[in-house]
């Protein structure tokens, strides 16, 4: 009964989405206020129904109603409640419902917070948002109904892949989806602006919080996924350039570019058609990612159950949404008049160059991801490019990008003084260079790229701090005065400082952990000792343990570090009851200088066990850096001037504050 109700609610939501897509758009074209007004109640209702449908499916999961096909395929009565709930979005059908519910939620948010928008713009944004929604409702109802019943009801479900039974994975997909779907709002704003034929600083101010919000969610989602891979997959890897990882990375790169180019639109009324294009592309990449994950067109460790019929449907949907919006862009973007001019050396230019690097990076990831498909489709050859390709290109491409970040943040709008900026940067450049030399000496023979990267990462870190110091006139005025300036910095400029600082910290962590990881492997009996880095590991015992839905062996290992500290580590290897998969629960000891990561393998007979250990220098810097980036985004989002839905004309006083 509940399942049928959920199905019915989805059909109702589709009906409202159709209304919301058609009527406000016609109303905006005719200048009919009443038709335009329809957008809001339709958006609220659509969200209400899709949310209820989502609750209906969640209910089926919680009570383990195995007569619902998705629940039988993906759940198990012995699963802890948390994973029953996260199972709702851990599969194709449920995640679609999740997607479309958030899509409707964002529509409702635009309807609610966008009360200050011009009526026609809001009507068009809501209409475009609903058009995307209609596509998803149809996709779900026609090819992937989450409420399908089974004729033969099984007594027990198939269970969720044990690898996915992890707290990290409870939160990773929702954040990712919120990011993808959040970009739909930006997309709707871009399409609405193209239809209206007008993009101005006010438009950029309205779009900015939505971009920022989506970007924060996307960043968090990607980092959580990476963190989960690091802890759960048992080899300490955090990024593998897997097609599905790339699918989330591409919209992130484009959204990051968009975040920066929208600033130029807002401050200088320039780079308009480029910004619109980025807004379209960011969401297009989200859709493309969805297609890659669900069509089975490219093999990936993450892929959902695949089905050519579904693939075909999404492809047609992609063609309509992306093709249609790019066509609209080609026809209408000439109406967007360029505003402020700027010199080749200026803040604007540096942001534009950075945009260029980010876009090229996204294109590289797109090419690398599609390479197996392209070579198979056009040349009949099975080949793929793999991690070395991406690492090489990114290792090179990111160098000029970081250099631009360093210079750009010190440049003034319109026209900047290169000489002055270079002189200001001399001291920190020297420090970074010395640090690189020292790294070269310490790691002699370990390759030149990591050395260059340590120098550049540190350079960016120092430059970001120096830029902040310059802004608050540190050491030029009394310290009290500087502190007062620091407190008065607009939150959006805190966003920039923290964002760049976090990026630099994460960069240093990435360089260290990917260049200087150490690894040791040994078959050990109780009492035997293994050495790795500054640690010596003694296997004390291996004991069997049972969890709620798994059995496991747990190693008890005494670790002694060189400085004399000792502690116990408990790596586990779990075998789940419902499916024959063994997962590793590595024991991780985190320090600022590096992580010690211990994994217990299989029994080698005679009380001997295979043990692996990794030492990953500065791994935690990556997570700290990422957290700082997200924090920067949140602080920037809380800036009063940009708060969602409170757009107001910039006052003269604010215009004087020359910040990002």
């Amino acid at each position, binding site marked *: 009964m509940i399942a049928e109700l959920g199905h019915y609610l989805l059909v109702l939501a589709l009906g409202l989405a159709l209304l919301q897509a058609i009527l406000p758009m016609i109303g905006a074209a005719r200048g009919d206020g009443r038709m335009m007004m329809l957008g809001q109640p339709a958006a609220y209702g659509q969200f209400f129904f899709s949310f209820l449908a989502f609750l209906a499916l969640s209910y089926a999961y919680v009570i383990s109603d195995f007569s619902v096909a998705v629940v039988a395929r993906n759940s198990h009565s012995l699963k802890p409640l948390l994973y029953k709930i996260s199972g709702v979005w851990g599969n194709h059908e449920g995640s679609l419902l999740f997607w479309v519910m958030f899509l409707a939620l964002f529509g409702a948010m635009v309807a609610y917070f966008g009360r200050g928008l011009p009526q026609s713009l809001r009507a068009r944004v809501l209409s475009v948002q609903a058009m995307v929604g209609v596509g998803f409702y149809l996709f779900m109802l026609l090819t992937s109904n989450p409420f399908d019943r089974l004729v033969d009801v099984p007594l027990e479900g198939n269970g969720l892949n044990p690898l996915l039974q992890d707290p990290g994975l409870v939160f990773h997909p929702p954040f990712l989806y919120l990011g993808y779907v959040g970009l739909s709002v930006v997309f709707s704003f871009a399409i609405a602006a193209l239809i209206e034929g007008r993009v101005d600083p006010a438009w950029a101010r309205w779009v900015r919080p939505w971009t920022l919000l989506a970007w924060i969610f996307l960043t968090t989602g990607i980092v959580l996924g990476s963190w989960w891979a690091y802890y759960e997959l048992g080899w300490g890897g955090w990024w593998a350039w897997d097609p599905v990882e790339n699918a989330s990375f591409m919209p992130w790169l484009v959204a990051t570019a968009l975040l920066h180019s929208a600033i130029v639109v807002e401050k200088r009324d320039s780079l308009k058609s480029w910004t619109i294009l980025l807004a379209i592309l960011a969401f297009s990449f989200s859709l493309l990612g969805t297609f890659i994950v669900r*069509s089975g067109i490219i093999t990936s460790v993450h892929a959902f159950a695949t089905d050519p019929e579904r693939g075909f449907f999404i492809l047609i949907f*992609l063609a309509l949404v992306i093709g249609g919006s790019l066509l609209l862009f*080609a026809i209408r*973007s000439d109406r967007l008049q360029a505003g402020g001019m700027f010199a080749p050396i200026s803040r604007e230019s540096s942001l534009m160059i950075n945009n260029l690097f980010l876009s090229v990076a996204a294109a590289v990831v797109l090419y690398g991801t599609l390479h197996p498909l392209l070579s198979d489709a056009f040349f009949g050859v099975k080949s793929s490019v793999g991690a070395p390709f991406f690492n090489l290109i990114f290792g090179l491409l990111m160098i000029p990008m970081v250099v631009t970040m360093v210079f750009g943040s010190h440049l003034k709008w319109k026209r900047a003084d290169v000489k002055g900026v270079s002189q200001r940067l001399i001291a920190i450049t020297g420090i970074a260079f010395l640090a690189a030399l020292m790294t070269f000496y310490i790691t002699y023979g370990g390759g030149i790229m990591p050395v260059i990267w340590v120098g550049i990462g540190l350079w960016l870190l120092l430059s970001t701090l120096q830029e902040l110091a310059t802004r608050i006139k540190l050491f030029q005025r009394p310290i009290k005065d500087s502190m007062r300036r620091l407190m008065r910095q607009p939150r959006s400029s805190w966003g920039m400082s923290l964002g760049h600082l976090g990026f630099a910290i994460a960069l240093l962590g990435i360089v260290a952990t990917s260049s200087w990881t150490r690894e040791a492997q040994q078959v050990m009996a109780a009492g035997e000792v293994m050495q790795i880095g500054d640690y010596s590991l003694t296997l004390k015992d291996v004991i069997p343990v049972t969890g709620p839905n798994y059995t496991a062996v747990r190693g008890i290992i005494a670790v002694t570090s060189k400085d004399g500290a000792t502690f116990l580590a408990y790596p586990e290897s779990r*075998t789940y009851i419902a499916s*024959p*998969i063994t997962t590793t629960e590595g024991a991780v000891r985190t320090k600022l200088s590096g992580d010690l990561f211990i994994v217990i393998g299989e029994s080698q007979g*005679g009380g001997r066990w295979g043990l692996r250990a990794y030492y990953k220098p500065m791994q935690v810097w990556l997570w700290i850096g990422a957290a700082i980036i997200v924090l920067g985004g949140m602080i920037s989002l809380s800036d009063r001037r940009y708060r969602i839905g409170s757009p107001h004309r910039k006052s003269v006083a604010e215009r004087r504050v020359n910040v990002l």
Partner: protein
Amino acid sequence: MFFKRLLPLMIFAGIFIALMIGLSLNPSAVPSARINKPVPEFSLPPLEGAGIGLGTEDLRDNDKIIIVNFFASWCGPCRIEHPALEQLGQQDGVILHGISYKDRPQNSLSFLKSLGNPYRKIGTDLKGRVAIDWGVTGTPETFIIKNGLIRYQHIGPIHAVQMNDLILPTLRGLQQEDSP
């Protein structure tokens, strides 16, 4: 100027065509499943001290259902599924054989001595060559054979839940196939 603005659309058109073609291709052309295929030809030496070895002709019994289980002493899940195997070996009209996979014979032997030997015959596949012909991806793995054809393949340990919901119903289904 118009061409410049049309460029993104044209790039997307190219990608779209590739995706369109791609939908009809299979990216992971893995070897086809072995279900309903004859058992591979093989002959394996015995595990010293536990029987007389195992070969293809042992699996061609037309009256009974034959189960072949790949195991190893170094494999933890094999210990977990051991009670399930003992239960299987006692089923009517069912013969259970074992193949020791990439394992030292003395280790396999002590594994069976400590837990009990559920197998009728045991072959030792020291190098794992025969396992490749069977398409074994890892231990434990279990095959159900009838009339010399592989009818069911179970990857991983057989848990109690699976025993009741999957394995036993499959066996009963196969046994009832012939009865009118």
